[in-house]
């Protein structure tokens, strides 16, 4: 048992190493360079650019820079951002909470919406609701999020003026202006109203795919012998569905959720841009555009760690949901 986990851990580190090597090579082969952003500025001469590149150590050969990066990263130092001159880790940690907040919220929104839709569609197959849900899922899967995001902004922020169109909090928000009794609700609402639209946009495609997946998985399980047995034994339908079938139907979905985690990070890049959400996705875009290699590598590695851990967690959940799964075998 312990061996098994050790092996998994070793695989995890090996994956991280391969990811870092590939990413570094990809970034290195992309033309431009960290000084490209200064070319259009007439006040910055070529000599200035050469001098700065030397300060950043960019005049060293790429393999050497990779080994320096690797050595420092193993020691927990992700380097310094060329854009801001601050440690990459600081830059990321400053934005990670915003991204995690958005991801967690939309993850739960996805689950809360997708699972009931899936169950209802499965138990009421070919009903009007089932057809509507099917259409809705395909729409959700195929709508581009930048378009859907703008549409939401036009409806809820401009037309109805219910929600703010972007940002994470009102800069001059001051909870002490409210009576103590309702203060927690005010704070809760202040956070939620900014979170709602980006979270919905981010969860849209997941709701689409997860609800379809839930439906088919549920249908599979319902047709199993043990469900027929349960029904034959006179177990009430509700209990059959929610106790016996649901748990078994959830197992494959959990794997899918684990696999979809990178999708959340990718989706966050676009969503954060539209809704001016100050998270890692935004940092990633500017780092990519400005060829801030250190920041790019940092974000890729931290995302990789989170995704690999997420998959590990999904595996563990899987085992918890289905005791038949045994890593010994």
């Amino acid at each position: 048992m312990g061996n098994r986990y050790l092996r998994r851990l070793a695989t995890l580190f090996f994956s991280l190493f391969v990811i870092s090597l590939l990413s570094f090579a990809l970034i290195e082969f992309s033309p431009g360079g960290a000084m490209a952003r200064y070319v259009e500025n007439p006040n910055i001469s070529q000599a200035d650019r050469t001098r700065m590149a030397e300060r950043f150590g960019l005049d060293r050969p790429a393999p050497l820079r990779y080994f320096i990066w690797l050595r420092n990263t193993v020691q927990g130092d992700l380097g310094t951002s060329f854009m801001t001159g601050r440690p990459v880790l600081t830059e990321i940690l400053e934005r990670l909470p915003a991204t995690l907040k958005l991801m967690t919220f939309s993850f739960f929104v996805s689950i809360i919406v997708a699972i009931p839709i899936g169950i209802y569609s499965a138990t009421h197959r070919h009903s009007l609701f089932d057809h509507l849900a099917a259409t809705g899922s395909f729409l959700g899967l195929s709508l581009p999020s930048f378009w859907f995001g703008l549409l939401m902004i036009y409806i809820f922020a401009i037309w109805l003026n219910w929600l703010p169109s972007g940002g994470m909090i009102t800069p001059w928000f001051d909870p002490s202006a409210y009576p103590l009794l309702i203060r927690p609700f005010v704070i809760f609402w202040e956070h939620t109203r900014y979170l709602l639209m980006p979270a919905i946009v981010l969860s849209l495609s997941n709701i689409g795919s997860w609800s379809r997946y839930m439906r088919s998985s549920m249908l599979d399980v319902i047709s199993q012998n043990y469900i027929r047995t349960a029904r034959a034994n006179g177990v009430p339908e509700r209990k059959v569905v929610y106790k016996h079938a649901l748990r078994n139907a959830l197992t494959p979905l959990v794997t899918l959720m684990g696999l979809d985690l990178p999708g959340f990070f990718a989706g966050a890049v676009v969503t954060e841009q539209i809704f001016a959400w100050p998270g890692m996705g935004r940092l990633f875009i500017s780092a990519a555009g400005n060829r801030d290699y250190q920041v790019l590598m940092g974000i890729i590695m931290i995302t990789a760690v989170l995704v690999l851990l997420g998959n590990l967690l999904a595996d563990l959940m899987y085992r918890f949901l289905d005791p038949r799964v045994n890593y010994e075998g």
Partner: protein
Amino acid sequence: MLKRMLALLLMLVMVVAITASCGQTSKTQTAEPLVWGMHQDIETLNPIFTESANEANILNGIFSTLIKVNSELEFEPYLLEELPVVSQDGLTYQFKLREGVKFHDGVELTAQDVKFTYEMKMAEKNAVPSRLRWERIADFQIKDEHTFYITLKEPDVTWLEGWAYAESMIVPKHILEAEFVQGGNELSKGGLFSRNPIGTGPYKFVEWSANEFVMLEAFADYFRGKPQIEKIVFKVVPDLNTMLARFSNGEIDIYDRVAPDHYEQLLTLQEEGMPIDVHNSPSFMSMNAIFNLRLPVFQDRAVRQALNYAFPKQQFVDVVLNGVATVAHADTPPMSWAYNPNLKQYDHNPEKASQLLEEAGWKLGEDGVRAKDGVRLSFTINTNTGNPVREAFQEIAKQEWEAIGAEVFIQNYEAATLFGDILTNIKFEMIVLGWSAGIDPDSKTLWHSSQQPEQFGAGQNYAGFVNPRIDQLLEAGLQETNQEARMTIYHEIQQILSQEVPYLFICFFNSITAVPANLENFRPNPTLAGNAWNISEWKLN
């Protein structure tokens, strides 16, 4: 049942609380700050390391410069008693600082701070983006607390202007020196000071939330008197469509550097009764298509002139840019004192273009493409992706030029690739770019033969333009101090440029800014000082 009742009750309380809180927010709206929308993130608030226009707007609030260039393009003393006095030989400048100017921590500004700012710009380990203006200084002498002399290595009439911009804002020695020493004689662009800036400007720094906003608050001891607007927030809105949306529902008060295709929508908002002013003013930003003159096809002046004749500049400005630009004939914008109004103009005339090519020996081949001595009139236009204006230029140019017998391809790259590789390594045939000029007409780095980056490792003569007369004039223009005489020189330079057309000069952009109608004293400034240059004078009625 009881559980359900309780849950319902809880819901009710929440709804009430939420509605109550909404009411509360609108009541406190009067205390809300002025919100400026910027579409790019900022990187530092330390003027030593700044180079971006966005940062300049914020830094205008926090710091001060020695002089200002006002919206009429005149120099004004700012931290100085009067404009500096220049010696006979044009080498030594005498500066006299105002007395009683205080930093936000109460310490008084002295000549030591100015000298320290210069030293930080030149400190070997500091990754300062531009040293162009600072490298020209030969000597910095402090006479007393408020008087100092700067001597240049050689006379340079363009040098003073630099003191008006964000990169020359004065930093406090008594705070920053410790950081410099602790860092091993090195300042970092992301050091403590860059996140807690202290200057002598009208606004104190309050908070910077990364990728989100920067908040400033009026400084009571500002040397020109406390500004009227209490708080100003600079908010980052990366997507321009979202920016327009947020501006139209009042979340953003100032929408600066408006996208050209948003101009009409803003005017519509104004017509529909939204209380806003839409400022439309000329800028120093130009748009050009650069010929690579090293290629045989573009070495022939007739080809360059023909392509100029065949491109409808005026229609491009009217249709693609909604008229918010001026057609360009050379490198100097019409608002400059050195502008030459009598230049060779290339009005849209495809027949003349064909005729020019025909006369120069570019004959139509069997494939419908002109050629001369085995060189085909075939080339590719590059620009960066995601720039609708530049892409529109390419489409129109391709269509018009193919009609006169050219073969045109379009290939675009992401910005970092275009500037960092295609442009700097001269891998283009024709490239569409924007340049921003200074208020001085000098353009040596663009046209002087010594400024070809691939040969001399310096300069921005990407076109590879070589013209002895131009070299001579550019050098003379930098040494002449009499403005009348300089004007003659720059008129001739523009004359030659419009004849030789090393670029296809397309247009000078206008800069559009939408502000609340009750914002007083907002006067757009086309220089690098930016539109927040007089932020301390703004008033809300």
